[in-house]
């Protein structure tokens, strides 16, 4: 946890004065200063702020969302934090590749995913344990841990897990989700139907476990 705090602090410190350090995202994790997808203008352009803010500020404001994406991709927190750190460094070093006026979140997710693919090609990591994967869902105090859903998500290949995250968690439409994962919108829709159907079958077939609060998991 201490490493994690230092990680966030180091990113904040790179761009903000100490007295300006603040919590830059709203309750849903969407940037207050960087538009979420639903806040884009009708013509697909993001709002005016992005023309005046650096990509660094935008990335910081999206950190919880990026972290969630990386965690679910890597399958556990530590690997997710490392992956995100490497991806952020690369995004900042190659900032020029981001096309101004396009959705930053879409680009950032795609960059994380691309880096993960590249690294995986070179070296496939070990299988994540159930406990480490389950811990992703027990970070927030007072949340109910849904073991059935966590187990189901762990059983999915990362690409399918991310499909669910982008469509159900991030509310991306299939086109943007497809851009992130480098597949067609049809593939996204088909995956969604297949996975949702399978999960619904699983839920209907088994007796649900009694949910238990996450105690002492932090």
């Amino acid at each position, binding site marked *: 946890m201490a490493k994690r705090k230092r990680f*966030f602090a*180091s990113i904040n410190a790179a761009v903000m004065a*100490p007295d300006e350090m603040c919590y830059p995202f709203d309750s849903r*994790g969407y940037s207050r200063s960087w538009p979420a997808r639903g806040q884009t203008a009708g013509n697909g352009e993001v709002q005016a702020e992005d*023309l*005046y803010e650096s990509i660094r500020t935008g990335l910081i404001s999206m950190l919880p969302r990026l972290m969630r994406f990386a965690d679910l991709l890597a399958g556990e927190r530590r690997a997710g934090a490392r992956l995100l750190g490497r991806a952020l460094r690369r995004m900042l070093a190659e900032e020029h590749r981001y096309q101004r006026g396009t959705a930053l979140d879409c680009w950032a997710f795609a960059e994380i995913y691309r880096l993960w693919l590249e690294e995986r090609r070179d070296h496939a990591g070990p299988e994540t344990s159930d406990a480490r994967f389950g811990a992703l869902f027990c970070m927030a105090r007072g*949340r109910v841990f849904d073991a059935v*859903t966590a187990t189901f998500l762990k059983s999915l290949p990362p690409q399918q897990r991310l499909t669910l995250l982008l469509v159900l*968690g991030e509310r991306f439409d299939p086109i943007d989700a497809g851009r992130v994962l480098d597949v067609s919108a049809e593939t996204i829709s088909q995956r969604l139907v297949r996975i949702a159907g399978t999960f*619904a079958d699983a839920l209907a077939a088994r007796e649900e476990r009694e949910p238990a609060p996450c105690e002492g998991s932090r």
Partner: protein
Amino acid sequence: MTELSDELLVAYVDGQLAGKQASAIERVLAHDDVIARRVAALKKAHRRLEAAFDAVLAGEEEAAVSHPVPPSPGLLIPWHTLVKAGLAAGGIVLAIGLFIAGYGWPNRSPDGMASGADGGYVGSVPQDWRDEVLRAQALLGRASLEIGLDSQGDHDFIALRLGRAIGTAFTPPDLGEEGYRFARAQILRFGADPLVQLLYLGASGTPLALYVKKGGADAVPHAKRYGALEGVAWSQGGVAYLLAGESDKEPVAKLAEAIRNRSDAQHAAPLQKKP
């Protein structure tokens, strides 16, 4: 029993179907228990997946906000910045070393020597960037930074702050029909008087600026060219306006006319002061 594919049902559960299609599904649900159970199962699956993703995000947010830590040298400071800082530190150490060794303090730069005779001199000839930025900085006051970039999407907040600044109800004109979208607003100062600057962006080109300031008798629009900028100034309802942009005279004049027409209603209601 009616046959409906999972594809259609998932689209229904996601709220992606048009009104007629959704109504048709609902009619089927009303009399087909099998389909109704399937839809209920899909909805439950979606809810649980969404809740699981929300739980991960909530955890990330808690981790991010808990115990703000004083900044430490960041891994993400660009290398070139570190190199520059290192070189600067090295230069200072070298200068101090030379000074201690008896070589004296390094000479001032030609710029410094030129202005050394008259430190307060700020001439317009020759003009350089320093003069320009100092003139621009003179327009900034504390209020300039009180409307942050993160508030620019909140039009009500912007209108409230600007209205307070100029002392009358004021809403940034919407120039969407003219092809300009509102980008941001800030409160500058001209002497002690607040001066509102509203910036708009067209499909291309530099920003269009509307300056608003309290005071002045009503006056009809008057065009004037300021170097590369075309400006149209007028007063209306006790408020003075200046619209400026890198454009020809006619488009700016048309935009000014559009703003004038939309501003008429605003001046009817003066801003109520807080008790």
